């Protein structure tokens, strides 16, 4: 379980996270939505201590991650996979080398075992044919999938997704959504997803939370979220042409 305990984060005199407290259960797909600049990615980065809170704490299964250092932090981070918005693939390595990197650097697996594991995850994200291509030679959607393959190659318990569908066409976006659901259902992976894409959020999320000015103004199941009276949440939904009536008629959410 991931727990945020009264987390405050100030950056350059601005309060980005304002006394944020919430919990994410094991095996849950927790989706954070909200306008740009409200602290969604900052929240995600606190979970793996890429940022440290100004005050408050972040816990993982009763162990504080926000003050962890050295080997303890390394051990905690081993439980995570992280899909960055940009993919963050290393430009001088092929797709397969990028995916194999954490295995070469942090495990004692033999090269043939690594190759087999890499092949498996690349097939899972439908990129087996692009294994020997450089990141610059493949499309944005393929880069995202390659980055996802790298994030899951060590079989993490928790995967954090930062804007997994941004900049992608609807078909590729739904492919990424299905992958997130597959990892959750079949492998029991806990997922925290940051997105602007409400179609995606309502389709995959077990719970959806709306971050506004560093605080959650709405949090609930997709059904509860769509039915919310919260003006910020309603405005966000309507901006993407999702109304309580229209969305449910189309049957887009669980």
């Amino acid at each position, binding site marked *: 379980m991931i727990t945020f305990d009264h987390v405050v984060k100030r950056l350059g005199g601005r309060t980005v996270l304002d006394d944020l407290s919430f919990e994410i259960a094991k095996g849950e797909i927790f989706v954070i939505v909200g306008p740009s600049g409200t602290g969604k990615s900052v929240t995600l980065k606190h979970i793996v201590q890429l940022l440290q809170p100004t005050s408050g704490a972040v816990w993982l299964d009763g162990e504080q991650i926000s003050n962890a250092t050295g080997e303890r932090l390394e051990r905690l981070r081993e439980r995570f996979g992280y899909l*960055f918005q*940009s993919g963050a693939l290393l430009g001088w390595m092929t797709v397969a080398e990028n995916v194999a990197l954490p295995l070469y650097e942090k495990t004692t697996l033999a090269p043939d075992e690594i190759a087999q594991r890499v092949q498996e995850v690349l097939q899972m994200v439908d990129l087996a044919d692009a294994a020997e291509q450089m990141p610059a030679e493949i499309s944005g959607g393929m880069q995202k999938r390659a980055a996802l393959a790298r994030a899951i190659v060590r079989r993490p318990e928790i995967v954090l997704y930062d804007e997994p569908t941004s900049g992608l066409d609807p078909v590729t976006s739904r492919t990424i959504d299905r992958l997130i659901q597959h990892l959750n259902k079949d492998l029991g992976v806990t997922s925290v997803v940051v997105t602007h894409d409400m179609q995606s959020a309502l389709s995959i999320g077990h719970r959806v939370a709306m971050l506004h000015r560093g605080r959650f103004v709405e949090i609930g199941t997709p059904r509860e979220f769509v039915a919310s009276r919260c003006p910020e949440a309603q405005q966000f939904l309507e901006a993407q042409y999702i109304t309580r009536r229209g969305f449910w008629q189309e049957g887009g959410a669980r």
Partner: protein
Amino acid sequence: MITREPIDYPVDASSWQRAQLALRQGLSELGRAAVMGARAVSGLPSLRQPRHWTAFLRQMYVVGIGSLPVVTVVAVFIGMILALQIGLELQRYNQEVRIGSAVMISMLREMAPFITGLILAACVGSAMAAQIGTMTVNDEIAALEIMSIDPVVFLMTPRLAALAILAPLLSFYTCMMGTLGGAVVGTTQLNVPWTQYVSAALDIARVKDLYVGLFKAMVYGLLIAIVSCYEGFTATQGAVGVGAATRRSVVTSFLLILIVGYFISRLFYF
């Protein structure tokens, strides 16, 4: 996480308080850069791994072969300029036969490591800051951290080792090329015979001058690697931030080369 978070000035801070905070931030960054350098040095045993060894060889190629043409041209022309300017003065006293000594001692003690340092800071250091800076703003460094791969050991150690090894070698090469350039001017314009030029150059060269020059170059190499990688790792705010980090890396390296060069000379010669 290796980040440079913006300074959180109190809203009502006076100019004096802001200056104090900025100074504290500057000292803190100096300390962090030193710690980062120490971390990179402590990672040197990792170069025994084949994958890291390959990265090291790649950096050796970038630093050594990549900067060789520029170093050659600059060294030859610096040697020629030195020979021309000093030679004209020596000619007034009929001492132009000593031009070989003058060029050799200037190159060996100061000019070769200094020129090599400047070229490496401008060509290699700036590229390192830009590359690592781009990786930082593209979250590639954060991705390495999530994978529990130490970005300092993974990226900085091969660069630091390559610069520490190749800067002295390039400095020696610069010295030879500069002396050769001086010889061209000496023999063609000052009418000093080639054998006399070489003899004068070799007579003045002492082992101490050689090792002080090489030591200086090695220190410059280490400084360039630390400054450039630190600036890259702490780059923020996209392309503008990468540009600023690159500029800071070059300016800081230049200043450090001048300041540290003076103190090393003072240490060994006074």
